[in-house]
């Protein structure tokens, strides 16, 4: 189905957060810390205040009244302490964006700097075991005897993989417009969840939630970075309060690198053992990640190992170190994405070491029930994905020998990796109302560019058995019935469940239906619910330059029932493209000397260009899984990025014989390996 808001978008009528026209709007621009650790000792805003158009300067000289238990990243100007370079320490509000920006540069901040520590390393003395990892998994699990399993193995690998910090980089930079009307605050924000954003903004400002409204009808991507409230939204509200005017803030691309979250760098040690037939005897996945001194965010990168393969001995562990860095957060498939990169690369190494085809190795180790915890799978079609992918990709007859295929000057290789992502559902509300011959669906869901509005239209049309043209979906507004955020690939499953129930009630009532799935959603305990997939890559490597090109990427996914093939394909293909970026080019460079990140624009932080992805194909296997939700759907927003980097890295090894175990796989690293 075509995007229901497609015409509005291509004609420019769809308004994004920074675009709402309001009278008398002022603009805020942030002043950011120039040190990575220490204290602000003085803020000299005199020159800035005297500049044209300046209305106010906000800083810790005049701390606002913010909730003491709010997210420290949002407690703006409440403390003189600096936790990372780029942290917001002041802001200027002015009549125009340019005046605000110019005056912000004129604010003189003096610091008492302290030595900082910004680099994650495997032997960092500050590493500790967190209580839980994102969102609430145990940090460590142990089943069986890993040492014995490795000792008794016919083949083992013991390898370290690492990934750099990565930034979400949605197309639309974060922006907000705060409007005070009497005692009611409306924030037009770029968010993945209007209701959650409203709650956080209200809590941070010490307001009851009914006095805050968040509007976010169109969002230009988020990839997790808009899943939690970001400081710009609080800043806009504080600035509106300080000036009595509506205040708009639009972060620059550079600022996105500082204050909107990122994926932590990860270091993985993987120890795998198998017997002569390829059966795993032990799997040990130990992960090291970083967080800020402000919040404990521990990316759950070893968690997918608890789901993937049958083994008598399974250990997973997470260690975290708190550094003088910005707080990492969610980025597309947190946990699964870096974790499966490492696990699936190590599985490939085991396959090579054991002389077993990498697809067969995975099939041999297919579990009957979830390896950690022992729950039955609600459905699991990894093997079917691998087989179907192998057929479509032309895997059969592949010569496993590395570094032997040439096409002209190019070295050619192929690789495979598995992917997985949990299938979750959250409680949601929705209403369905018959109005003037149309059916209006209302809920505070978010369409962050995925096509959620379109998919919900299709779901409602199906439930009501009417043409989609008679259904209108209103979302992106916290005043609508409460709905969870677009995240964890559970948006559509959660919202769609409520929409189906509301439509069922409308059909009974004839006029109106309201649903709350609190009773039925998010049940757990009985089944392990996950989507699975298989990713295939063909790569060509230039032996003179180390350049890697990927002429073909192919993924097959088993993600329940696919609701809309066009929308699903673009999610899978988008995820795989992002996975290619992770494999070959994406890297935020931590600036060891000054703190923060050294590269912070899209000329320096490379994401794939069209020429990098000539042929990306996504297919799926329809699953009939009765244990999910009324649509029988598993999420599809994140699984596409999971496993892609491993498939490409494995293909690079197959092409060249060189294993680059530290992403991204750059020409420099490959040349060093040749």
């Amino acid at each position, binding site marked *: 189905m075509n995007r229901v808001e497609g015409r509005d978008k291509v004609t420019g009528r769809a308004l994004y957060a920074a675009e709402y026209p309001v009278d008398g709007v002022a603009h805020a621009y942030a002043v950011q810390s120039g040190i990575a650790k220490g204290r602000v000792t003085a803020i000299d805003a005199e020159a800035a205040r005297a500049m044209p158009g300046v209305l106010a300067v906000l800083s810790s000289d005049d701390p606002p009244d913010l909730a003491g238990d709010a997210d420290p990243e949002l407690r703006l100007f409440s403390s003189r302490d600096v936790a990372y370079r780029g942290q917001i320490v002041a802001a200027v509000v002015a009549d125009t964006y340019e005046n605000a920006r110019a005056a912000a540069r004129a604010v003189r901040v003096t610091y008492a700097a302290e030595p900082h520590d910004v680099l994650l390393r495997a032997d960092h003395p500050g590493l500790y075991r967190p209580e839980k990892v994102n969102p609430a998994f145990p940090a460590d699990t142990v089943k069986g005897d890993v040492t014995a399993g490795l000792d008794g193995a016919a083949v083992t690998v013991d390898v370290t993989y690492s990934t750099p910090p990565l930034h979400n980089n949605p197309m639309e930079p974060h922006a907000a417009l705060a409007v005070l009307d009497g005692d009611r605050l409306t924030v037009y924000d770029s968010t993945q969840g209007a209701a959650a954003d409203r709650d956080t903004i209200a809590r941070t400002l010490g307001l009851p939630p009914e006095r805050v409204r968040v509007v976010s009808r169109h969002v230009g991507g988020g990839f997790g970075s808009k899943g939690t409230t970001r400081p710009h939204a609080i800043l806009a509200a504080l600035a509106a309060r300080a000036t009595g005017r509506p205040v708009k803030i639009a972060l620059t691309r550079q600022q996105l690198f500082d204050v909107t979250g990122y994926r932590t760098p990860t270091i993985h040690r993987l120890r795998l053992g198998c017997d002569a037939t390829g059966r795993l005897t032990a799997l040990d996945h130990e992960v090291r990640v970083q967080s800020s001194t402000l919040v404990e965010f521990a990316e759950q990168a070893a968690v997918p190992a608890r789901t993937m393969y049958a083994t008598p001995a399974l250990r997973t562990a997470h260690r975290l170190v708190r550094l003088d860095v910005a707080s990492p957060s969610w980025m597309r498939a947190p946990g699964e994405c870096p974790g499966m990169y490492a696990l699936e690369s190590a599985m490939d190494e085991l396959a090579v070491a054991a002389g077993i085809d990498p697809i067969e190795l995975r099939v041999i180790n297919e579990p009957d029930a979830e390896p950690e915890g022992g729950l039955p799978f609600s459905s699991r079609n990894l093997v079917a994905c691998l087989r179907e992918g192998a057929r479509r990709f032309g895997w059969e007859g592949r010569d496993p020998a590395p570094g032997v295929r040439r096409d002209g000057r190019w070295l050619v290789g192929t690789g495979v990796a598995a992917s997985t992502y949990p299938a979750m559902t959250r409680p949601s509300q929705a209403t369905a109302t018959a109005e003037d011959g149309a059916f209006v669906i209302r809920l505070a869901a978010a369409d962050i560019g995925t096509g959620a509005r379109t998919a919900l239209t299709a779901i409602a049309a199906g439930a009501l058995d009417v043409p989609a043209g008679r259904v209108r979906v209103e979302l992106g507004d916290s005043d609508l019935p409460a709905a969870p955020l677009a995240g964890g690939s559970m948006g559509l499953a959660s919202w769609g469940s409520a929409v189906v129930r509301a439509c069922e009630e409308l059909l009974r009532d004839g006029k109106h239906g309201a649903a709350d799935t609190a009773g039925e959603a998010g049940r757990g305990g009985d089944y392990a619910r996950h989507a699975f997939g298989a990713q295939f890559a063909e790569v060509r490597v230039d032996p003179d330059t180390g350049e890697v090109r990927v002429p073909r990427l192919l993924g097959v996914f088993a993600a329940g029932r696919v609701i809309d093939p066009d929308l699903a394909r673009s999610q899978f293909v988008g995820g795989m493209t992002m996975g290619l970026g992770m494999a070959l080019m994406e890297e935020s460079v931590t600036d060891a000397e*000054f703190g923060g990140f*050294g590269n912070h624009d899209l000329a320096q932080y490379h994401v794939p*260009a069209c020429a990098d992805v000539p042929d990306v194909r996504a297919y799926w296997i329809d699953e009939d899984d009765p244990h999910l939700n009324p649509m029988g759907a598993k999420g599809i927003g994140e699984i596409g990025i999971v496993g892609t980097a491993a498939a490409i890295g494995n293909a690079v090894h197959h092409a060249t014989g060189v294993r680059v175990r530290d992403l991204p796989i750059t020409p420099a690293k490959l040349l060093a390996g040749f």
Partner: protein
Amino acid sequence: MKAFEYTRAADPAAAVAGFRPGDMYLGGGTNLVDLMRLGVAEPERLVDVSRLPLDRVEAAGDGLRVGAAVRNSDLGAHPLVLARYPMLARAVLSGASGQIRNLATVGGNLLQRTRCPYFQDVSKPCNKRRPGSGCPAIPGDHSHLAVLGHSEACVATHPSDMAVALAALDARVHVTGPAGSRVLPMPGLHRLPGDEPERDTVLEPGELITAVELPPPPPGRSAYLKVRERASFAFALVSVAAALDIGADGIVTGVRLALGGVAHAPWRAARAEAALLGAPAGEESYARAAEAELDQARPLPRNAYKVPMARNVIVRALKELTP
């Protein structure tokens, strides 16, 4: 961004005559406007020279004269460029993106500034931006920076692809300024950093590039090879502009070699050329020539890869030009 004035010059003479301290010429603005947003460039006034009548590509005998305001897209697609200087067309079209090339001018392309990350971040020191403040790239991230001709003060690279081809083609840059007109050879417009890294070129304040003159193309075949971290829209890690002519006896009778991505200026590989002239064409000679050039390389820990990369690409380019 600091407030600035904008004016449009009527002709080159007026542009030069009206040039005041604090002015900057504006071409397509694809580099300068970015740097203004970042606070790296803070002109009082922009003198727009992109619409001067310097927008023609004209044959000059067997050579070519290219106006400074010719857009990169037009240059790369011009039939005379494609016919006579395919190396130049390849170089221009390998740079930036279609949209940027539509705006970028020849003059602006030559004078674009380094992409060193510290240079572009006014919150950090940088000798090129703030003389005497230090060069954090040397102990820090120099992974994309120079391996040849750099100094203790600066290890930046010049990012242009076009300039590398121009350096190989012995182009001449016509400038006019307060002290009159002059012609600068390529290489020769750009300088090495020495202890004055703030100066990218030998131009004096107010000097305007009006044209680039190309002598008749060198005999033989030519190529431009560029190594980059993604398939398009990325600056060169290393690039090579090469022309090669081989006599009937298999002896190299003419060679041009210039390197990009390795130095503060497009790098004419004079030592390699000297080693090749009169040598038998073939991989062995090519490798020896590349070594002769790269023996003088002084890589830093994080850009050492550029030396083998440059060697391999020189050899590859010459091999591709060998019938």
